[in-house]
Structure formats: C-alpha cells, structure tokens
C-alpha cells in the first residue's frame, strides 16, 4: 500500500467505526487480510493479540501496526492520523450542535436515551474487563448451573485488586496512576 492509500484507507475506517474500535478488527480483516492483500492471516492474529495487551486505544495500536508493516514509521504515523482525522472534525461538530440546539426536542430526546445507555455500556464494559481478569473465560450468564464453577475458578488476587481499587477511588484521593502501577506489580506475582 502506498502512503496515500494508507492514509485514506484508515480515514475511511475512522468514519466507519460506529460504537468504538471493536468494529475495526472485523473491518480490517475483510479489507486488508488474505491472499493478495497487504496482511497475512498469521500477521493479523499476532497484531490482534498484541494490540489488546499493549497500553493505549486498541484501534490506534492496530492502525499504527498495520501502517508500520506497510511503510515503516511514516506509514505508522499516516495510518494513525488517517483514522483520527474524521474524529477531530465530527466530535467538534457534534459538541457544537449539542450546545447550540440543547433545548430542542431531538437533542433533549437524544440525551434522555443516550445518558442511561452510556451508563449501561460502561457497566457492561466493567463486566467484560472482569471476564478478562477475575473470571477467566466468560461468565456463563445464561446458564445458572455454571455460576458456582465460575465463582470457584475466579482469580482471588485479581478480585481483591478490583475491589480495593473501587474502594480506594471512592473513599480517598489517591491517583489512579499509582493504583495501576501497584496492580501491575501485585498481579505479576500473585495473578495467573
């Protein structure tokens, strides 16, 4: 892929990412992975596993890596800039529209629906992170007979870290950055 195709391909992905970067992985897979396409299946599998355990937004990690494999550092920078260009324009536009038409029925209705939906999604994200750490595998929501074994398989140190973090954040003024560092250190020795 040339430098300009990289930029515009990721620009397009940036526009298509509704509901966050999760959708990026299937998008990339269908457009960029396979025979006669820029990425091999094996390369893509490596990329997905590494992007998720590397700090930073998963979508940006993915864009940077794909860009780097195609055109080196310049490619990495352009793919990343490509995916965030629509964001810069659209978010500012949306923020202004919300402010300008704040009292109108559509905006009030939008907020009335989206505020609780956001809360639900944040809770769900918390549960999904719990499935990645405390309850390895997945929580068997639809199969109550699996609850007990899921609970028994729980990673206790991870559970303690999560509860301690919650209590400390709600009760004290300790910065979350220290909590993150301490959790990583504790996890290295105690978690599976």
């Amino acid at each position: 892929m040339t430098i300009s195709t990289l930029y515009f391909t990721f620009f397009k992905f940036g526009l298509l990412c509704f509901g966050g970067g999760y959708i990026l992985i299937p998008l990339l897979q269908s457009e960029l992975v396979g025979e006669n396409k820029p990425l091999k299946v094996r390369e893509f599998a490596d990329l997905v596993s590494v992007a998720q355990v590397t700090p930073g937004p998963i979508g940006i990690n993915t864009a940077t890596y794909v860009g780097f494999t195609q055109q080196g550092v310049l490619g990495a920078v352009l793919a990343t800039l490509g995916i965030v260009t629509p964001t810069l324009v659209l978010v500012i536009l949306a923020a202004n529209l919300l402010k300008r038409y704040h009292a109108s029925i559509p905006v009030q209705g939008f907020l009335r629906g989206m505020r609780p939906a956001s809360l639900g999604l944040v809770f769900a994200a918390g549960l999904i992170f719990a499935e990645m750490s405390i309850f390895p595998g997945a929580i068997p929501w639809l199969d109550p007979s699996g609850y007990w074994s899921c609970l028994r398989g729980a990673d206790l140190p991870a559970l303690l870290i999560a509860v301690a973090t919650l209590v400390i954040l709600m009760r004290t003024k300790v910065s979350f950055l220290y909590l993150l560092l301490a959790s990583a250190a504790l996890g290295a020795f105690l978690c599976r």
Partner: protein
Amino acid sequence: MDSAKTTGGRDERPEPLRDLSRWRIGWVLFWSYIRITSLVLGGGYAIIAAVQEEFVRRRKWLTEDDVIEMITVTQTVPGILACNSAVYVGWKLGGLPGAVAALLGAIIPSLVIIIAIAAVMSRAQDFIQKPMVRGAFVGLIACIVGMVFATAIRMWKKVMIEPLAYIISGCALVGLAVFKLPPVWLILGAIVLGIAVQTVTVLSRRGEREK
C-alpha cells in the same frame, strides 16, 4: 507556575481552570493524555474511566455531567472511543488547540510503543505469554475493573432519574455484557427511544396546556 509541580502527579491542588493560559491548558491536556494512554490497557472504556479520574476527581476541570455528556458524544460519533473522548475534552477545555493537544497525547504513546514492538513482533508474542507478564496484565485489568465501576457508580445518581432510564440502562447492559450485541445497535435503539419518548412527553405537555 512551577511546571514540575503540576505534571509530577504528586500535587495536591491542581490549578483551577480559569487562571490558566491556553498554552498551559493545552500542555496539561497533552501530558495527561500521554500518561493515561501509556499506562491504561484495554482501550476505550478503560481510558474514559481514567479521564474521569483525572479531570473530574483530581483536577476538577470537568463535572460529572460533562463526563456523562462526553461519553454520550464519544459513543455516538464514529471513531475510536478514546480519541473521541480526547477531542471532546480538549475542545471543551481549550478549544481547537486543546482538542489537537489531547488527541496527540492520546495517539503518541501508541505510536511509540507499537513501532517499538512491531520490530520484534514474533518475540513479543512469546513475551506476553510469560507467566509474570500475564499476571501483570491480569492485575492491571483487575484495577481497571475497579476504575470502570467507580465511574459507573458516580454516573448513577445523575442518570437514573426516571423509570425509562432504568429500562434503557438495563437493556444496554444486558445487550452488551450478556448477548455481546454490537454497541452500535444498542446506541441507535436508545437514541430512537429517547427521541420518541421526549416527543410524546413534550406534545402531551403542550396538549395539557392548551386545554
């Protein structure tokens, strides 16, 4: 102003927003996002929780309501959640320069880290399989579980103000966590329902007034 004082993470009283120049705000945004995205694993929601910790709880530059609005905009507009939130927070606090500063802060750590890893990708695979590295990853994600729930609990009182809110929230929660539906459908559903209910409410209120 002593710059080490505000960027070291140890200051007890961050500067109030109104006393600051645009450059200073841009710098703080940039640096805060650098710190957050270079430490926080797990992508969008984890980063949003960290942003809430940094800008609401610690610096008091944003209110809970600002964060709720940030999350709604962030999820509605296409794009990567963390970057959407960076642009929104940056724009709200420092206009266009603020938005660019925060956005750059959100992407630079990824660029550096991934370029460094890409060169040794096959060995990186082995490295992340090591027990201690896996343990550290689990510990970090567990900490993020706590952070995300703290954010959700703080949002609760502001959001759960009517029965409709419980219904929409519950559907979004179950839809994503249990049935793993793509968030975009949950979001569209919530928007359509919200606008429909709001229209009915406003029209019936108008109808009553005319009687």
